[in-house]
């Protein structure tokens, strides 16, 4: 049984019914497959939902890697492009995501649904940060640099949340939000602003 097929059928069920299928058995019957065939791919609906989020991410990355222009971009530009493409991908599934959001409130509050996506995203961001080190876009800082990934994850959740609430024409406010958020984050981790802030904090703390 193809995983993609199950994911699509699951999304369709949500779109048409606005809720989960009552059981895996019922879902399989409707799909015309044996329940055991389902378990070959997924063990539960939760696993399907997680995989759907992951597939949004993976489809985006796949598309990016085909693009030669993307490969020549700087770390900051790569991340920008990722967000723009990711949001495009999400747009194809907007109804499903909004339904999920209504049922589970905002995705960030139910982070378990995003868990596999988060792990893949962390790997991707680590690559970007490494690239940023080599071409001096990002400054390596003891202890703190390890936390960058978490910051970018928060940023991704911010973009996701902003986009779910965006009602502007062609979601252009999301574009603006992405541009501003990424610029800000890269300015923070590249220049000395952040160092000065830490330095000041350390000074105040030790003086006491």
């Amino acid at each position, binding site marked *: 049984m193809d995983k993609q097929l199950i994911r699509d059928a699951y999304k369709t069920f949500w779109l048409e019914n606005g809720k989960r299928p009552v059981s895996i058995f019922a879902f399989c019957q409707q799909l015309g497959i044996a329940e055991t065939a389902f378990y070959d791919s997924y063990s539960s609906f939760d696993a399907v939902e997680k995989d759907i989020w992951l597939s949004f991410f993976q489809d985006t990355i796949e598309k990016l890697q085909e693009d030669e222009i993307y490969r020549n971009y700087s770390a900051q530009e790569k991340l*920008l492009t990722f967000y723009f493409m990711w949001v495009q991908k999400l747009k194809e599934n907007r109804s499903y995501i909004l339904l999920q959001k209504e049922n589970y409130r905002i995705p960030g509050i139910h982070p378990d649904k995003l868990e596999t996506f988060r792990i893949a995203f962390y790997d991707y961001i680590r690559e970007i940060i490494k690239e940023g080190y080599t071409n001096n876009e990002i400054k390596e800082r003891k202890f703190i640099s390890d936390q960058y990934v978490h910051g970018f994850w928060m940023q991704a959740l911010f973009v996701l949340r902003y986009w779910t609430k965006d009602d*502007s024409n062609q979601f252009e406010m999301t574009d603006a939000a992405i541009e501003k958020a990424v610029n800000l984050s890269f300015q923070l981790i590249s220049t000395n602003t952040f160092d000065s802030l830490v330095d000041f904090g350390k000074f105040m703390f030790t003086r006491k």
Partner: protein
Amino acid sequence: MKEQTNIPTGKVERASRFVTTGLKVGTNYLKHYTKKLLDPSISKDELHADNAEDIYDTLSNLKGSALKVAQMLSMDKGLLPKAYTDKFAMSQYSAPPLSGPLVVNTFVKTLGKSPFELYDKFEIKAANAASIGQVHRAWKWGKPLAIKIQYPGVANSVKSDLRIVKPFAIRIVGMNEVDMDKYFDEIEGKLLEETDYKLELRRSVELSALCAHIPNLVFPSYYPELSSERIITMDWLDGFHLKEFLLRNPSQEVRNKIGQALWDFYQFQVHTLKTVHADPHPGNFLMRDNGTVGIFDFGCIKEIPEDFYINYFLLVDKEVIRDEVKRRQIYTNLEMIHPTDTEKEITFFSELFQKMIDMLTLPFTLDSFDFGDESYFNEIYAYMDYVSNLKEVRDSKVARGSRHSLYVNRTYFGLYSILSDLKANIKTGYPVNTPAFHQQ
């Protein structure tokens, strides 16, 4: 307050930028007065320069409509201390650029393809910044093209930006809030129109065709199939912006030629088309050494209502002006004086306006005019300075001047200031005071 729910982060961020500027401007004043304590001879020039710098930085970070307001303020040279004008004039050329990925994203979203697929060659680095967008250079069909791309979210932020800018504008221009409301409505409408690139494309094509017969003007061709609501593709025009052009020491003959072309362009639009390219800031004109001038950016178009047109240009007519009753009627029609004004106020303001109008319309009444005559402009600036400092004017609680006069005046201000920088000596007089005009 409704807009707040739409773009909360944007607005807070924008507002906080202005707070920072406010603080900086405050510090500048503090610095100024401290220095002044130590050295009483110090002038306010440095203070104004500091303030202008900080305000400019804020506005250029905000881009969009705030930058547009900066441009408008910088047009009316006489209303601002010189340092403000110089710094704001820069906003006509440069603002921080958009990232490459966002440019590509805009293409993919609105035209379905990346710019690298659409054009033979596309420069991802912007060649120029426009107030609500930026211009890229590209090649296709063996010729260079100019691609104008709009910043995302500009239309959404127009309203909130204007609301934030307003207190600053009131400060800088010294106008009261009631006046501002009326004019801000007009500005808001025009700004929203400017964000509509489809409308701009249509108007550009129409107006370029209608004005094509005027000598020494060059209009680009536009390519609707490569344009969308956020992108306009047109021919790349060579030439220089006003300041760079003047650095090349063009001959008097060339400067006259360009000045004449611009004058004819505006006169034709105002008097014949009654629709005018109301954005005559130097960034919209490219001047060349052979005396021709390239014109683009028809984003800001003012349609001049018939009754406003008649009243406005009747003021140039010496015969009409002699007639006290007629004159008052015109002033009332143009909302320069109001039925609620006292006799004293009417006399006071009529005199002010008439003096101003006499000065500003002087070129219309002569056959030719030398815009290189600095004493003429100095006299205007001095008088406007005098007027804006009059207690009666500052205390006036009502708006004076119709909302239509805003963009029409701005157009003439812009034109005059370009002609003055060009020091052009040109044939004026068209077609005011001709029989055709009186029949209107």
